[in-house]
């Protein structure tokens, strides 16, 4: 983790330096021009290796920003991020007093969300992305690119009905009544972002890392978060029965020229997709996600996705995310084996109840 962070800070600094150095920029352009896509023995583009989709660019476009950021906007955002990371990466003061009751918040949603304002994580542990996503040469303000406003379309009537039914059910419980009332990540079932997806999107916190292994009849994508594996079979789909809905669905792949196209159906109804964003939704049984993987240079896979879910949305929508090659290795994310948090969350709620305090309803 530390090596990764040092690397990413360095890369960030280098990137900023290069922006002001015309000669170096031309050198990069020459390299790009002479690059030839590496191929597997069966002639397909070689997507194998370790990749990361960590980025500062949010899933949903912020208000008042165009789809493509200016160089000045990028520099301001990345520079601010770098300074924030450097500051937060300082060693903790061992003599500091306990934080005040209720926590002490930094203003950074990631840091505050992770620690509850008690200093649970400092930035040593966090690698949420320190650069703006550049796709096809454009620095992007959101990962969602269609519709053109960068927003996920609103739910259709069927989708609203499904959400209302889900809320009516969960509202029967307090948020801390049962393990099943807690989010998937707290239960160590899935990543807190939709890292595994599909669509595979960054979680803005840590471990946005993937390993791809490719054979003539399979593409295997290993997701560091919760050691999830997507096994994509190549060829004519033989879909699963409708009632079998694995967490990351049933994926089939094919090649369209040099692009790997993957179609996924049967995604688990409780898999929170596009989570950590205003675009979060739960898939209906009608969902189909189409992903397109294109190797564009030595260090980049362009990843594009389209969500078709007529049980939730009246129109399809999607986005584009660069996956960048990472030099480091992935770690084992053995979440469940060390999950003291879930026991403590539940027993803490029981202790509060003994003191006569009730918890808020489950509003997921």
């Amino acid at each position, binding site marked *: 983790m530390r090596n990764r962070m040092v690397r990413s800070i360095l890369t960030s600094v280098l990137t900023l330096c290069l922006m002001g150095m015309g000669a170096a920029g031309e050198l990069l352009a020459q390299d790009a021009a002479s690059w030839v896509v590496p191929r597997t023995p069966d002639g397909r583009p070689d997507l194998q290796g370790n990749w990361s989709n960590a980025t500062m660019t949010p899933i949903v476009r912020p208000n008042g920003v165009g789809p493509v950021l200016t160089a000045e906007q990028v520099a301001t955002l990345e520079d601010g991020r770098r300074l924030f990371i450097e500051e937060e990466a300082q060693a903790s003061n061992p003599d500091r007093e306990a934080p005040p009751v209720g926590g002490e918040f930094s203003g950074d949603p990631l840091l505050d969300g992770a620690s509850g304002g008690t200093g649970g994580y400092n930035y040593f542990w966090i690698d949420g992305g320190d650069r703006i996503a550049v796709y096809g040469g454009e620095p992007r303000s959101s990962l969602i690119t269609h519709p053109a406003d960068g927003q996920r379309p609103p739910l259709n009537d069927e989708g609203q009905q499904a959400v209302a039914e889900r809320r009516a059910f969960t509202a029967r419980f307090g948020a801390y009544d049962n*393990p099943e009332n807690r989010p998937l990540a707290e239960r160590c079932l899935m990543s807190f972002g939709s890292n595994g997806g599909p669509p595979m999107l960054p979680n803005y916190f840590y471990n946005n890392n993937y390993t791809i*292994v490719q054979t003539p009849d399979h593409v*295997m994508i290993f997701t560091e978060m919760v050691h999830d594996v997507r096994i994509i079979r190549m060829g004519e789909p033989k879909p699963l029965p409708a009632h079998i809905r694995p967490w990351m669905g049933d994926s089939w792949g094919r090649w369209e020229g040099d692009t790997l196209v993957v179609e996924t159906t049967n995604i688990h109804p409780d898999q929170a997709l596009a989570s950590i964003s205003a675009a979060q939704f739960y898939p209906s049984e009608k969902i189909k996600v189409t992903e397109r993987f294109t190797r564009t240079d030595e260090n980049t896979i362009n990843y594009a996705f389209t969500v078709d879910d007529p049980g939730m949305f009246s129109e399809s929508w999607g986005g584009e995310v660069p996956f960048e090659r990472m030099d480091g290795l992935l770690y084992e994310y053995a979440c*469940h084996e060390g999950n003291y948090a879930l*026991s403590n969350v539940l027993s803490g709620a029981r202790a509060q*109840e003994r003191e006569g305090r009730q918890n808020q309803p489950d509003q997921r």
Partner: protein
Amino acid sequence: MMVPRVVSRGAGARGLLVSLLTFAIVTAPDLAAQSGEVPRLASGQPDMNGIWQVLGNAHWDIEPHAARAALAMQPGPVVPVPANEVLALGAIGSVPSGYGVVVGGEIPYLPEALAKRDENREHYLERDPEIKCYLPGVPRATYMPFPFQIFQSDSKFFISYEYAGADRDIYLEDPGPAQVDSWMGQSVGRWDGDTFEVHVTGLIDQTWFDRAGNHHSAAMTVTERYTMVGPDHIMYEATIEDPETFSRPWTIRMPLYRNVDPNARLGQFKCVEFVEELLYGHLRKNPIRE
């Protein structure tokens, strides 16, 4: 068939039994003699891509064992009977016999480690990490009663196990000592002729070998050897070294069988959610059991 050299330990019926059972453990050259063509990658290495599974009962107990009524027992008026916690499963909860996969028949425990194994058996329900859906470790992942899939290319060798969604990226370049110990360890593979040899280090001490309390320390290293002995069979060997637990290195050996169904695929067995009632049920606002 070549007869493995076995020295029976001790005289009498027990020694004879171990010796006879050991005869059943075949060696790689035996199967190679019966084999067809081994599939190969363009690079010439044996192509182990596919879905594989061990047959047999090593997952219950890697040592030779007779069938018994249940994994957890309690005293009965005449003979021991299944413990209350597992009684409802009836014959489904019974343990089938197995002829063992340990070369030589017995695990060479140090005396204190053997005592701990026996204690593990007495406290089986509280201690077996499989009950809690913990990652299985190596070599246990191989012979869990679930298939696993090998993804092999010229540059990668990756194993995805159905049980608990465990995985191993077997590095073909040694990254140096493991930075942290982990449930599945750090695996580094190399080709020794047509055998894929994997050295596994960085293993924590909390995994077991089977459902019989067989255990190890964090000093354990495992050397696995995968040898294709035909298009649909891999002879699997794992040599265990752990001087804190065992008096000498020892080896398990068993064939891996390819699932030849063209529609075969791994299922998803994310058992974490299946054990939430067991692990957290007492912390519900309104527990559903005493």
